[in-house]
């Protein structure tokens, strides 16, 4: 039913970015060709817009104080729209997050209310994970806010990789000082992303693994976020299934649907 020609799971920026990149790399360019960053970014941009996805996934969060896992269903359209609904645990069933452009709303079924996340709370945790609300929103401006370049191309640790380094543009209001992504040349699947703060300190690492073929490309189905300062904490997102090119329109990503989707 779907074209399976793009991977944009929307929920989480790093994942998105990784997958976005992957999608771009996989599409019209032959994998073994030398990568041109401009082409890469243009492809990401072109492939992203109008693209839709539908996924089921689980998220496991481990912190010093709690461990929680939940299953979620998510839809996305382009880079601007996404909707995530929690399916389990029962206590939180129906809690939903809607993202439209740079706005985030949460729907809370227990009190039957929709609450907009104000800008002051954007750096707060999303659903108790190590991802922030900002992570959901920022990815849409990532290409505009960062200058990317391939900083390494060749064999490292026995595999052929591209190292893509993204630096914020001088006047961009961004969280990170630098993001480095490592991509496998053969599959063009990212396998690691490192996030640095403005002082150049490593803040978090996301590992991507369990590649699976979805349509024409290799998609890492698991991503593991590791905060640098808390080695015993992590957030793991595991995709059970993901499909692209599902029929969705803008009306789907509305406050009315946010309530109705539970």
């Amino acid at each position, binding site marked *: 039913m779907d074209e399976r020609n793009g991977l944009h799971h929307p929920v989480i920026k790093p994942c998105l970015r990784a997958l976005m990149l992957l999608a771009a790399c996989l599409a019209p360019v032959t994998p073994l060709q030398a990568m041109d960053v401009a082409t890469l970014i243009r492809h990401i941009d072109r492939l992203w817009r109008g693209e839709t996805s539908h996924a089921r996934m689980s998220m496991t*969060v481990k*912190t*010093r*104080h*709690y461990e*929680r896992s939940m299953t979620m269903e998510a839809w996305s359209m382009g880079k601007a729209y996404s909707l995530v609904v929690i399916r389990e645990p029962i*206590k*939180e069933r129906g*809690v939903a997050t809607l993202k439209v452009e740079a706005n985030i709303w*949460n729907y*809370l079924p*227990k*009190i*039957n*209310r929709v*609450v*907009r*996340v*104000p800008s*002051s*709370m954007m750096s*707060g*945790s999303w*659903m*108790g*994970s190590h991802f922030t609300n900002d992570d959901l929103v920022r990815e849409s401006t990532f290409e505009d806010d960062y200058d990317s370049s391939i900083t390494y191309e060749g064999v490292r640790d026995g595999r052929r990789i591209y190292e893509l380094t993204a630096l914020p543009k001088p006047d961009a209001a961004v969280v990170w000082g630098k993001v480095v992504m490592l991509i496998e040349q053969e599959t063009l699947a990212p396998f690691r992303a490192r996030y640095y703060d403005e002082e150049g300190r490593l803040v978090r690492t996301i590992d991507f693994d369990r590649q699976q073929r979805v349509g024409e490309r290799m998609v890492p189905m698991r991503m593991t976020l590791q905060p640098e300062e808390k080695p015993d904490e992590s957030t793991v997102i595991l995709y059970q299934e993901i499909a692209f090119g599902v029929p969705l329109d803008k009306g789907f990503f509305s406050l009315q649907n946010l309530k109705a989707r539970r």
Partner: protein
Amino acid sequence: MSKALEAITAGSAPGRITLLLYIGWRNIWRNPVRSLLTISALAGGLVMVILYAALLEGMNRQMVRHATELGSGHIQIHRQGYIDDQDLYATLPWRYLRRIESEVSGVHVAPRLYAAALASTREASYGVLIRAIDPQREPLVTTMLRHIRSGTPELGMAAPGSDGLPRERVIVGAQLARNMGIAPGSELIVVTQAADGSIGNALYRVSAVLKPLEPGFDRMGVLISIDSYQRLMALESGFQELAVKVNDPSRVDLLRQQLSALCDRVLDEMPLEQDGGRPVVRTWRELNPSVSDLLELSGTFLLIVGAIVVGLASLGMLNTMLMAVHERTHEFGILLSIGMKPRWLLLMVFFESLLLALVAALSGSLLGSLAAGYFERHGIDFSRTLPEGYDWAGIVFEPVISATLRPMDVLYASLLMVAVTLLAALIPSWRAVRLKPAEIMR
């Protein structure tokens, strides 16, 4: 005069002093108008100092009362982790509360919990600080729940609304209520990250709005019950703060030691997990360093202002006595030439000053105490000139400042005045001694 001189020269030392005192007293009234003016200047200065001391003390007490009765209590217990960075999870288990209640006498305790949250009405969202209290215990420790501007201070579950959704009751800080445009009866949605990582959310109905307590709380604070907090935050392991009221405030330091020892004992019996740190017992002086600094500062202020006022008044005294000595130069010359010893002359002038000072001290402290007593009963109302919830360095002032008269203040002020005037009296006395009879009589 010569008889008196005889008595001075021949008599015993005590008799001589009595006589010199008597002469000094008589001398004062040789020019009653001048003396009375001097006395009233000195007494007036003293009245000012006493009144100032009483008002300052009244303000200080009010400040301490604000700091302790309204919010902090006399002593608080937290874990180090909570003190350092308001770590949500740095709770003290409930057994600490039970042990303190059963083993320490002369105190009342109230447990509290805090959390940052987002509070929304249909129109606006604000970041708030939730303070969860025990509605039964809190009134025994602080008067927070009586400090209500509107509504009734009830907490816990409220009647469900027409939509059948459960609602809990919340009391809102003064400034926050104004900013959000809410009043008793308004609905408030509270969303936060619960202790188990889920999105804590609940519907609240505002039951009351507080009067100003402290600027931070007025702007951001909401009060809910500990039961509501536990449902919202999924955090039942204990409390973050224990406010302690000491029935006899003079025993604060003693009880702090007792509580500290008890906490150490309970900790030894069953260690806590490392992250939250040890329990720490602190008094209100440590909790409100600005208040205790201000108290110390005001003592210094009082001394400086007192010294200035009394010093000025004693200049009047100096002038009077210089005039008195000057007028009587001739008389003193005669006295000296018929055998009066210069040191007796000095003593006589000195006694004259002392008696002036004593009369002024007596009348001044009497009038000052009366005035302070009046303001103790009536207070000075600044509510027209001060904005509501006016604070200085984070300490809210009540608009009506009433004086508190401390007998020791009156005594110290009088002593200060007598001492300063006697110092001033040394100059004219000295001049009397230096007189050379031969030159004067010529």
